[in-house]
């Protein structure tokens, strides 16, 4: 391929090779930079407004400074937890079905349904729950918000648990089966406990995602300017508050919006980061 005296062509090829590495490296570091830029802005703009009042008081009337978003924090916690309680059985159950029982067309349909559900635009989830629940059962409510969030969580949990269960070696199941254990006991008492921590992290991922969702809550939970623990009434939530405050003109509200974003990113980011860190080797493990 090369002859003596072709050094020009050789050099050019080497330069192009080097340039492509440099280009790739630049693009990668640009991408990294973007994350630091965004998180940096949130921290810088939000940290000043984090004070005791912010975490303990409810919002003041339009235009009055002070107050806090305590009710929104409570609302997010309540709705997300309830959504998790609803979503976990369906998500885990579906994953168990796919891995432990899945054969034939029904199983393929289930997997397909999970994929579709996972990519649903969240605003469409809001529309669906509005039409199903809000319209027919007394209006905007925390329970409608929780249902919307649970629809978003189910496929995340299902996929995550599915991946985890797939990694459990067959030998474990075979051994238990050989000892005469009925299948359902094998699944519940042997397979699942083995991977319980991992299932937990999958749930954390879903919770992190649900805690940050705004669009479905716009149409279901509506928002509340007071503390509210009654799920049949509208509830406040942090992402809703951020949206309302960010598009408003009030400087005080802008500061609160940044601070809320900081708190939200901290929670969501820590949860997601921990999960990603814990599971980073999975995709490359063979089965």
């Amino acid at each position, binding site marked *: 391929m090369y002859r003596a005296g072709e050094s020009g062509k050789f050099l050019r*090829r080497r330069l192009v090779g080097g340039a492509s590495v440099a280009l790739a*490296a630049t*693009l990668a570091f*640009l*991408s990294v930079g973007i*994350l630091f830029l965004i998180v940096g802005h949130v921290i810088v703009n939000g940290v000043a407004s984090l004070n005791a009042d912010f975490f303990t008081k409810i919002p003041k009337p339009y235009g009055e400074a002070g107050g806090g978003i305590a009710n929104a924090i409570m609302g997010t916690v309540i709705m997300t937890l309830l959504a998790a309680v609803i979503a976990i059985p*369906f998500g885990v159950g579906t994953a168990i079905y796919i891995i432990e029982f899945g054969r034939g067309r029904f199983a393929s349909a289930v997997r397909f349904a999970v994929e579709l559900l996972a990519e649903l635009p969240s605003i469409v989830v809001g529309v669906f729950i509005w*039409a199903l629940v809000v319209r027919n059962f007394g209006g905007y409510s925390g329970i409608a918000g929780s249902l919307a969030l649970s629809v978003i969580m*189910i496929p995340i949990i299902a996929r995550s648990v599915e991946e985890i269960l797939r990694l459990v070696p067959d030998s474990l199941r075979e051994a238990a089966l050989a000892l005469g254990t009925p299948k359902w006991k094998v699944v519940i008492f042997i397979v699942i406990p083995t991977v319980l921590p991992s299932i937990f992290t999958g749930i954390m991922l879903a919770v992190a995602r649900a805690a940050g969702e705004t669009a479905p809550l716009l149409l279901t939970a509506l928002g509340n300017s007071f503390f509210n623990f009654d799920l049949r009434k509208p509830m406040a939530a942090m992402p809703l508050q951020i949206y309302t405050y960010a598009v408003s003109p009030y400087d005080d509200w802008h500061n609160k919006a940044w601070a809320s974003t900081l708190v939200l990113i901290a929670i969501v980011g820590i949860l997601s980061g921990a999960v990603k860190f814990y599971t980073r080797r999975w995709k490359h493990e063979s089965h």
Partner: protein
Amino acid sequence: MSRITKLWQGASKAADPSDRRFAAFVAAMSAVVILLVIGFVVLLTIDSMPSIRKFGFGFLTGSVWNPVETELNHVNFGTLPFIFGTIVTSIIALVIATPLALGSAIFVSEYAPSWLGGPVSFIIELLVAIPSVAYGIWGLFVLVPFMRGSVEPFLQTVLRHVPILGSLVAGPPMGQDLLTGGVILSIMILPTILSLSREIIAQVPRLQKEGMLALGATKWEVLSQAILPYARGGIIGAAMLGLARAIGETMAVTMVIGNSSRKISASLFTPGYTIASAIANQFTEADSAMYFSAIVELGLVLLLVASVFNVTSRLLVSRLVARKEGADV
């Protein structure tokens, strides 16, 4: 799949009644998931029927969206402005995000030493954890002024007299416009394309890469002649998944895109709507039956389009994986 696994999965027909009950229980859970998806399509279609019957295909091709009957303008629901906004912002997002994601994926997979590649890709993928509304507030307070004050005037000065590109940058720089919507979307879909591209590049058979290196190819040649051709289908699939995400993205876009459903203009500096942001803005106030039906139909369109892209993406990616399993030596 091993013989034991097939046996295992078939064991639901076992003698133990608890086994059958357990199997039925998890099957029921799964059935609910299927019912949920079916329920989505059915409920949305039922509520869209009035609008579907009245406007038919004109819903997608009509360019006037007028929800309130005035003496001048009759009620009409043409969604072309929204579709246009969605297409434009998604294309901009893809154009910006794909090179960034691909370049980063290549860097991380092929060029970087493992102590660097791992953390770099980890950090970039953290972008996916940031909630949409956080992108929205950053977009509104940081990106929009930056675009309006620096980027858009710059683009305008540079491209103003270029024949076709000039019309893309015509008009006063608004900041809150289609261009900024596209930029914020690109940041949001970057990690999606990156993580899938990384997986795909990892699927390229090592034999091919090592063979070329042994023959004296440079890194660029390995990339352009071994990796990219092999992974091309999968990378397109990754881009499609990014596209599906971009189409469905609501909050961040709503906060930066300007929310004005005027006539469709060539300039990227005009405020616009995407399908998702139109629904978010208008759903709670769709007070007439036809208005409501039109918005729900819009939701149905969004659902179908996002699902089609999602499914196509998975098909493309899985074909690549299948090829690899076949080509494995």
